[in-house]
């Protein structure tokens, strides 16, 4: 549970899954603003494969909760056109891995129209997409691709680790005048057919609220090492931090929440305090988020007590068999081992 998820006074706690928090944010924004609509595959009667549009068809009807053909190029392109004429479309790309059939609409139009129009044509749209593996779905349904989207200019990119942040980030995303890629991790989503990391379910106020972009949170305060995570890896880091107490290591865990814009200041301040940095990312190792975070800290001139480390998915396609996939994924055990070694050197 993050530091932001504090119960408000005079209100009973209300623990929600990320799926329910997303659906609630969508419903509240749709009630508030008639220009908001949702499009995607299986988002109407089914309520979304990942449950984040459940109940919306009944309230808003098929004109604003639109099931699409399996035509990502057309419907994401259509969202760009809707945004150009005053709508605020939210589109779902069911799995981020499907980006290969529609990336032109995303990074050549949604991400560039504001720039190429000299600011005349903003593109207020949200693309929500599921990420992450660990459940045996192989490499066309398990990638994170955080670095891929964050690398390309013109899009904001957010990755919630819990329901409170998911709702607030979704409200911010819908109200933002730019394309926002909202990447939700399947292991945190709260689906009946897939296990859910319990830490992702937390207290969510009923009234609409925003979580601003570009603000990381300290999910756990500590003094010996900074562990930076995002989405599911925040929970691995928190589990590892719990185990590290026994070894006398007090770990601080930073939840990035937003990749674009990126809160380098919070990361730098934490590493300045602890002197040690480990980045844990489920996306591929090379050319990605982990390298970017380490570069930010090094460029800031922060004095380190040990070389910075990263744990990420190796540079291989994500395999199917559990004996191939699971050892390749980041884990609390890997974090404990790495942090222990880092702490040994230079304490």
């Amino acid at each position: 549970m993050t530091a932001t998820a504090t119960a408000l006074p005079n209100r009973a706690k209300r623990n929600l899954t990320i799926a329910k928090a997303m659906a609630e944010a969508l419903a509240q924004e749709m009630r508030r603003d008639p220009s908001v609509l949702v499009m995607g595959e299986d988002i109407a009667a089914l309520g979304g494969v990942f449950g984040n549009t459940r109940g919306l068809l009944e309230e808003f009807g098929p004109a604003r909760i639109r099931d699409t053909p399996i035509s990502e190029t057309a419907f994401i392109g259509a969202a760009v056109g809707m945004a150009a004429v005053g709508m605020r479309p939210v589109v779902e790309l069911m799995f981020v891995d499907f980006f290969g059939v529609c990336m032109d609409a995303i990074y050549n139009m949604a991400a560039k129209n504001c720039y190429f129009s000299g600011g005349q044509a903003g593109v207020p749209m949200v693309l929500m997409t599921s990420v992450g593996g660990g459940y045996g779905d192989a490499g066309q349904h398990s990638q994170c691709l955080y670095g891929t989207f964050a690398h390309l200019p013109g899009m904001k990119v957010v990755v919630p680790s819990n329901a409170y942040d998911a709702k607030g980030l979704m409200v911010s995303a819908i109200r933002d005048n730019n394309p926002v890629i909202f990447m939700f991790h399947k292991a945190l989503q709260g689906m009946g057919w897939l296990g859910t990391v319990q830490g992702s379910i937390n207290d969510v106020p009923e009234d609409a609220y925003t979580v601003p972009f570009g603000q990381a949170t300290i999910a756990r305060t500590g003094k010996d090492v900074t562990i930076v995570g995002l989405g599911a890896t925040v929970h691995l880091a928190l589990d590892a931090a719990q185990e590290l107490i026994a070894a006398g290591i007090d770990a601080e865990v930073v939840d990035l929440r937003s990749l674009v814009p990126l809160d380098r200041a919070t990361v730098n301040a934490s590493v300045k305090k602890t002197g040690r940095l480990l980045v844990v990312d489920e996306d591929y190792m090379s050319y990605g988020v982990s390298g970017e975070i380490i570069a930010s800290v090094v460029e800031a001139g922060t004095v380190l007590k040990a070389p910075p480390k990263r744990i990420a998915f190796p540079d291989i396609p994500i395999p199917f068999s559990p004996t191939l996939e699971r050892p390749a994924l980041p884990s609390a055990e890997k974090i404990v081992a790495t942090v222990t070694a880092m702490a040994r050197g230079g304490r």
Partner: protein
Amino acid sequence: MTPTPQQYLWMYENMVKSRAFEERIATAYFEGKSPVFNMANGPIPGEMHLSNGQEPCAVGVCAHLDAADFVTATHRPHHIAIAKGVDLDGMAAEIFGKKTGLSGGRGGHMHLFDAAVNFSCSGIIAQGMGPAVGAATAFKLRGEKRVAVAFIGEGAANQGAFHESLNLAAVWQAPVVFVIEDNAWGISVSKAQSTAVPHNDSRAAAYGMPGHRVTGNDPAAIFAVAGEAIARARAGGGPSLIEIETSRLAGHFIGDAEGYRPAGEKDALFARDPIPTLRGKLLAEKVMTETDDLAIVKRAESAVEQAIAKARAAPFPAAAEAYQHVFA
């Protein structure tokens, strides 16, 4: 549906203006590019795709549109932009990469945006089709009588986006018209080499929408077919597809040696240049006099000369301006 004399004169003047604009752009484009042709040099660097010969497609369709209607065009956009009423000064300045351009020099000739008249174009084949379906769907959702038109080339009819967008438009009965400018060439590959059917209007049937083919590069014939399709869309009758036989009088881009063209093709195309053809018709049918013609040509050329002169005189953007407008 036949054009009124006023509509004929509007179409003719915009064709003349487009041609005059492109002639001056071509002249400026070659500045600084001799004796060695290097695309990076001169006042207009980069690729330059001229639309001369294709003006009838733009005017025949846009005669039925107003500023509120939404148009997406291609990498070959000038004739459509002019017919849609895009600010000529801003467009010229954009092509010269100036601060006063439509997007302050960030987009150039393939990325012309004028929100005031709901016009945009882009550099990827068939890319504008999805946005046109989306804009049209928004109009329908809000009960507005606006329509969207996506212009594409015949090469775009083999893109996935073409087929996905036709299907989506039909499923949602969006007020959108897809207009194919068939100039017979996708850069150097002929339509016959690349396309499984002789004409793309037949592909409309696969998506349950009307398909029409207009031959002869004739503004009046295009006006008639486009008028029906746009009126149908505006009245809630759903999407349609039109393929227009037209002529690419220039190469794919300036600098294209066009060695792939059969001998004599260019001469034959110039012999059927739509502008002198329309001029002859309007004079013969007494829609205009020689004096009217001179006045139209003078007005069009004067607007173009002023736009080009202002563009040349305008300041370049400062390097720091590259960092603006990444986000709204």
